């Protein structure tokens, strides 16, 4: 379970996250939506203890992430698929992370197989395409077989086959009773994958409901999203 309590993060004079509170429960996929710059990635960094909150709290399984002893066994996250050393092989990249959390080489081979990168495991990650890097990032998130998972725009750059694979993967993980938080800008895809939706705008909570509730009053999730975020789009094109 992930829980945000009055979470606030300020960078200089930008208020990236503004008194944000919501819970992500196990057992279903929670979609995390919001316009560019709404604070989704920042919220995820705050949950992982990478950035320090200005005020408020972000809790995983009721505690602070920084207090976890072997965090990969409890929380897996994909934040930025490009964050790999270009000269390191995919296998070694995962192995570096695995070793730090007492995870064995067998599990590394397993997740590589799972994301379909076994064939290029010994190739340098710098030469990977965007979609391959996304798969590598997903493999890293799954390494410790964690109960809580966060993915920041994992379908970016994936081929149609990959998009469908992610959909199945996310739903499968949730059905196993895990907590899954998934951000994306693809509304139709989100409607197929998520059960619950959290929408943020300008760092504040805009909506926290099931997909069914959101689509009840609107023709589609996209229409619902458009209507709800109309006032919080910061970087929209001029019309």
């Amino acid at each position, binding site marked *: 379970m992930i829980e945000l309590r009055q979470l606030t993060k300020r960078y200089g004079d930008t208020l990236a996250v503004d008194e944000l509170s919501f819970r992500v429960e196990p057992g279903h996929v929670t979609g995390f939506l919001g316009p560019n710059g709404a604070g989704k990635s920042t919220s995820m960094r705050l949950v992982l*203890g990478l950035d320090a909150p200005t005020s408020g709290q972000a809790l995983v399984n009721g505690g602070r992430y920084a207090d976890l002893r072997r*965090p990969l066994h409890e929380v897996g*996250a994909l934040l930025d698929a*490009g*964050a*790999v050393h270009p000269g390191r092989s995919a296998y070694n990249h995962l192995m570096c*992370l695995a070793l*730090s959390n*007492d995870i064995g080489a067998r599990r590394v081979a397993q997740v590589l197989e799972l994301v379909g990168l076994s064939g290029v495991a010994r190739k340098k990650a710098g030469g990977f395409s965007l979609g391959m890097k996304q798969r590598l990032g997903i493999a890293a998130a799954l390494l410790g077989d964690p109960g809580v998972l966060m993915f920041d725009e994992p379908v970016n750059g994936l081929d149609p086959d990959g998009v469908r694979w992610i959909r199945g993967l996310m739903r499968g993980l949730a059905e196993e009773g895990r907590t899954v938080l998934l951000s994306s800008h693809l509304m139709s895809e989100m409607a197929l994958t998520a059960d619950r939706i959290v929408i943020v705008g300008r760092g504040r909570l805009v909506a926290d409901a099931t997909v069914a509730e959101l689509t009840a009053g609107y023709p589609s999730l996209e229409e619902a999203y458009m209507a709800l975020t109309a006032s919080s789009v910061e970087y929209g094109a001029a019309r």
Partner: protein
Amino acid sequence: MRAVLASEWLKLRSVGSTGYAVGAAALTIVLGIVWTLYVVSLADARGSIRAAAPEEGFLPLVQVSLAVLGVLAITSEQADGMLRTSLAAVPRRGRLLFAKAAVVGGVTLAASAAVLIATYTISRLIAGDRALGFNDIGLLDGLPTVLASALSVAVLALVGLGLGAATRSTAAGIFSVVSLLFVLPSVAAYLPAPWNTRVASIMLPNLVPQIAGDRLSRRLGDGVLPPWAALLVLIAYGAAALLAGYLVLRRRDA
């Protein structure tokens, strides 16, 4: 802790830059052999000669190469974003930096000791019983200086790691190390006497001769520090840089 050490050791082994850095440092052995052969040929022509010892003359090469290795151990992760992934796996930042320091310190100490001892021994063997100036003391008597040099290289790599973490940039990290290693000492040497010697005595590259009880240079004469104090100052350089790196790493958003 053992897990984090194993992870950092693999990180260091699995990137190409480590190989280049150690390879550049190991070039000293080759250069040392060429140097000694050349000096030997001069000595055979002229009788005897006073030449610099190769493990001292080429020491800057070892220092720069392995200091860069230390800087890169942290700044390359910051540059490509891997540091976030690393911190998600090891949220205790002090622990991560400490593991990096242990691995970088161990690897650079082993590499510099191997390179310097090899250069030292091979050059003495090539020299045989010719009088080349640098081989006028017994083979074992020169070893303490060589080991002090190796230790200073390892400390320098840790200074690089600490300053890399503090400045969060490869270029700035290397610039800081180079400032400590070359810029400040060369500026200090231009101070009027006796301040040149006093200030030079606490400069990083001048600590090795003081630890070994040698003079700093012909111009600067003897340093003001006794061996134990020079050793303490050397360790203080590493500790201060790592502390600075830790404070920045702990406080800043990753």
